[in-house]
C-alpha cells in the first residue's frame, strides 16, 4: 500500500501534465533554453570550437521558435500563425548556419595556424 500512494500521486500528476496537448509556449521555452545555452556557451568557452558550437545552439534555438510559430499542429484558437513561412525560414537558417560554420571554422583553423592555439583568450593583441 505504501507504494501505491506515491505512484498514484505521480500518475495523476503526470497524466495531468501529459494529457494536455502542448502549446506554442512549450516550444518557445525550449527555444529560449537552447538560445540562452548557446549565448552563454559563446560567452564562457575559451575553446574557439566551443564558441562555434554555441553559435549553432543559438541559431537552433531561434529555429525552434520559427517551427513553433509556423506549425499548424500547435496552433491554438485564433492565434496568428506564419504558416509555411516558419518552416521555410527555418530551412534557410539551417543553410545559412552551415555556411557560417564553414567560414568560421576556416577562420578558426587560420587562427590556430597563426597562434598555435585555439584558446580565444590568447586573442587580445587588439585592444584599447
Amino acid at each position, binding site marked *: 500500500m505504501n507504494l501505491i500512494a506515491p505512484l498514484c500521486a505521480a500518475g495523476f500528476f503526470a497524466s495531468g501534465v501529459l494529457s494536455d496537448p502542448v502549446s506554442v509556449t512549450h516550444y518557445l521555452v525550449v527555444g529560449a533554453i537552447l538560445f540562452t545555452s548557446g549565448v552563454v556557451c559563446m560567452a564562457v568557452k575559451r575553446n574557439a570550437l566551443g564558441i562555434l558550437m554555441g553559435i549553432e545552439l543559438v541559431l537552433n534555438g531561434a529555429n525552434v521558435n520559427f517551427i513553433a510559430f509556423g506549425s499548424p499542429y500547435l496552433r491554438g484558437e485564433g492565434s496568428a500563425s*506564419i504558416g509555411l513561412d516558419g518552416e521555410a525560414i527555418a530551412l534557410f537558417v539551417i543553410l545559412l548556419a552551415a555556411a557560417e560554420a564553414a567560414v568560421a571554422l576556416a577562420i578558426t583553423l587560420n587562427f590556430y595556424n597563426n597562434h598555435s592555439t585555439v584558446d580565444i583568450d590568447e586573442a587580445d593583441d587588439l585592444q584599447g
Partner: protein
Amino acid sequence: MNLGTLITASLNDTLNVSLPLFRPELCLATTVVLLLLCRIAPLFRRLNSATVALGGVSFALWFAWCDLRGLPGSPWLPTATAVGETLSTRPELFTGLLVYDSLTAYVRFILTGFLVLYILFTQASGIPDREDGADFYSLVLGAALGMCLMASANHLLMLFMAVEMASVPCYALAGFLKGRKASSEAAIKYAVYGAGAAGVMLYGVSLLAGVLGTCHFPSMSLELARITNAGVDSGSIMVLSLGGLMVAVGLAFKLSAVPFHFWCPDVFAGAAAEVGAFLSVASKAAAVALLLRVAYGLGVPVLAAGAEGSLESTRAIAALAETRHFIVYVIGMMAALTCTLGNLAAYGQTNIKRLLAYSTIAHAGYLMMAVAAAVAMVGVSPAGARSAVSAVAFYLGTYVFMNLGAFAIVAMLRNKLRSEEISSYAGLVYSSPGIVIAMAVVLVSLIGLPPLAGFIAKFLVFSSLVEAITASAERPLMLVLLVVGGLNTVISLFYYLRVLKVMTFDPPPSDLVGESVSLVSLPGAVVAALVVPVVVLGLFWSGLYACAQLAGAFSS
C-alpha cells in the same frame, strides 16, 4: 485556381516584374560565377580577375544608374516632373520579398559606384595581388550582393538573410591577410561577434513574426496598426518591444552602434586597410538603408496607391504613433551614445586604422540621428521626413569619397612607410606635401567643416534635426540630439586635427624608411580621384543632392 495558373502567375511575376528591376544584383551574381570560372577554365586563366570584376561591376553600375535615372521625379527624365513626386506604385519583387523604390535604387547606385572605385583602389594599393584577386573579389562582390538585398529587403527572411550574406564574406575578408596574427584575430572576433549578433537578431525576428503572424513588412505594419486600434494587451507589447530590440541589436552590429560596436575597432585594426574601407563605407551604407527600411516597415503603414492623405491613411499613421515613438527613442538614444563614445574613444588612439574605426562609429551616430529625425517627422511633417531621408542619402554619398579616400591614403602610406601608426606620419609634409593635403581635405571633411562635402552632409543632418525640433512631437529628444551632435563635432575636431598636426608640425624621424609619396603615380591618381570629389561635392552639391532627394521620396 489550379497549379497551372499559379505557375504562370509566378513565372510572369518573376520574369516580367522582378528580374528587370533586379539587374544590378544579377550582374553581381554573374560576376561572382565568372570569377570562379576564370579560375577553372584554362582559357580564361590569364585574364586578370580585377578586370573581370571591374567589368561586371561597371555593368551593375550602369543598370543601377538607369534605374535611378528612370525614377519618377528624376531630373534626368525627358519629361521632367516635380521633385518629390513619389513612385506611383511601389513594386514588390519576388512575391513581396524585396521592394523596389527610390531608396533601393539610390543605395544600389551608391554601392555599385563604390565598388567601381573600390576595385580601382585595391588594384592600385596592391591588396589583393593577382594570385588572390579572384578570391578577394568574389568575397567583395558576394558581400555587396547581400548589401544590395539589405537595401531592398521587404521581408523578415530577407532581412536576416541579407545581413548574413553581407556579413559572412566580410568575416573571411577580415582574415584575408591569413599569415598575420592580427588579421586572424580580427577575423575570429568579427565572425563570433557577428554570429552572436545575428543570432540575437534572428530570435527577435522570430518573436516579431510570431506576434504579428506575418513576415512581410507592409503586412506587419498594417497588422500592428490593426491590433493597436483593437487594444493590444501589455504582454504582446512586451514581446513586440523585445523582438524589436533584438532586431535592433543585429542592425546595431552592422552599423557598429554603441553598445554593439566592440568588434569594429579591433577588426579595423587587424584587417587590411582595404577591408576596413569596404566595411566602413559599403557595409555602413547598406546598414543605414536597412535601418530605414525596418524603421519605416514597422512604424509607417504602406498604403495602397493613391491613398495618401485619405482618412484611412491618417488613421493608420496615427495608430502607429506609439511604435514610432519607441523606434525614435531607441535609434535616437543609440545615436547619441554612438556619436559621443565614438568620438571620445578616438582620443588617444595611436593606430590610424583604429582611429578611423572610431570615426566610423561616430559617423554612424550622425547618420542614425538623421534616421531618428526622419521617423519622428513621419505623419507630422512629410516634407521634413523626406528631407531627413535625403540628408541620410546625401551623407552616404559623400561618405563614400571621404572614407574611401582616407583609407586609400592609409593604404598608400602603409605601402611606403611600412607602418600604420600615426606617429610614423611625423613630418610627412616635408617629404610628401601632396598626400598631406589630400589627408587634410579628407579629415577636415570628416570633421564637417566648409567648404567640403562633409560640411554639407552634416549641415543637412543638423538642419533636419532642427526641422524635427520644430515639427515633431519628439522635441526634447531631437533637441538633445542636436546638442549632442554639435558638441561632438567640436570634440571630433581635436583628434582629426591631431593627425594633421603630426603630419605637419612634428619633426620627421631621422631615419626615413619610405621614399616620398607623390600624387603623380597610379596610387596617387586614385587618391586624387577620391579626394577631388570631396572638394567638388562641397562646392557643387546640387547634383548629388538631387539624387538624394529622389531617395528621400521613399519616405512618402
